[in-house]
């Protein structure tokens, strides 16, 4: 059983991660040429997703469970911003999910594969696949959710 309360140091770290993740997402939102007015919201979506992920990891969850847990509020927020700003949900989802996407995992899997460490490649590949499935399930869950109060025109 892991502890349920976080130390102040851990909380400080989480807050720092929140802002760094936001800044990182913002940088990529700029690279992908998102409209200027959506930029702060893109950063916020990314920061929230990563914050939930890190918190879940701190509480001892596995990477794929943490990803699933993080992608749900992330997608929800992306949908809310999409409706509020009358912008496709893709813009917030694509940039906001960037910290969570197992880019490093795909890379490690390919790297070990090339290096000939088949077992490590397989282990990384499987954990990446799990995260991918978790993200897909999370996205599907939230995007499939009917939102009667502010139904986006589809």
């Amino acid at each position, binding site marked *: 059983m892991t502890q349920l309360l976080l130390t102040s140091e851990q909380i400080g770290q989480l807050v720092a*991660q929140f802002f*760094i*993740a936001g*800044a*990182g997402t913002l*940088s*990529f*939102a*700029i*690279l*992908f*040429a*998102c*409209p200027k007015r*959506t930029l702060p919201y893109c950063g916020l979506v990314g920061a929230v997703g*990563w914050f939930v992920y890190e918190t879940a990891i701190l509480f001892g969850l596995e990477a794929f469970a943490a990803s699933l847990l993080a992608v749900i509020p992330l997608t929800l927020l992306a949908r809310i911003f999409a409706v509020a700003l*009358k*912008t*496709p949900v*893709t*813009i917030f*989802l*694509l*940039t906001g*999910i*960037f*910290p969570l*996407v*197992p*880019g*490093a995992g*795909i*890379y490690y*899997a*390919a*790297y070990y*594969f*090339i*290096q000939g460490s088949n077992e490590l490649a397989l282990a990384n590949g499987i954990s990446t696949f799990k995260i*991918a499935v978790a*993200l*897909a399930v999370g*996205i*599907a869950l939230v*995007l499939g959710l009917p939102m009667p109060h502010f139904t986006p*025109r*589809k």
Partner: protein
Amino acid sequence: MNGRELYPDEQQRQRIMDFIMAAGQTLLENGAEVFRVQQTMEIMARSFHLREFHVYVLTNGIFASAGTAEISEVRNVPTRTTHLGRVAAVNQLSRQIAAGGVTIDEAESRLVQAKGIPFPKDRVQLAAGPSGAFCFALIFGGTLRSALAAAVAGLAASAYLLFCGRHGVGGGFKTISTASLITLICILSCHLLRTEASHAIIGTLMILTPGIAFTMGIRDFVQGDYLSGTIRMIDALLIAASIAIGTGLVLGAYSMLTGVVLA
């Protein structure tokens, strides 16, 4: 003749069709998912009273017909960039068309405008690359020093990618050489700063990682576009493999030269 009449004549129909195809192509080229492209094109067709409009969209092509195949068009969309501003602009246009009041003339000129939205200025890109690398190196558990090294490598990588864009260097070679460059600079600058290189390397590689292809693949799968999703996933795998080759080359050479194995 404003393109909003209930029964557009033959010439008008052809024009509407061309417009819808161009709009779809713009969306697809700039990183919209298959489902959205299809939906937007159908909405536009309905709003302009183009009857019997059917469209099939793949990651790299659009097939559509209208008026019991009186008009049919195919578009090949081999290149994909990511410019979400253009996607948002075309989406905005489609909303206004659906709301009524936008004539085909206006719609055409608005589409040309949307297509012409420029990419961020060079210096903005040169600033965003390093700051992204810096943040992600920190996020992935790196120290401040390795994040600094990542920022240096990010700057070099952004500059090199801009150069590649100018001179038409593309595909696997671009990814492999950029990954090599990033690894080389990260190793060198981490050596100077006396810190571990792996966090800096991963953080900077985020500029290259197939996050977009991967996420879009997932979204295509979720919507039931399995073929497009597969294309995206293969795309993501090939990019990842290219990155690994580039990084592996440099890391291999490094360990051969110095006898030190880096992760």
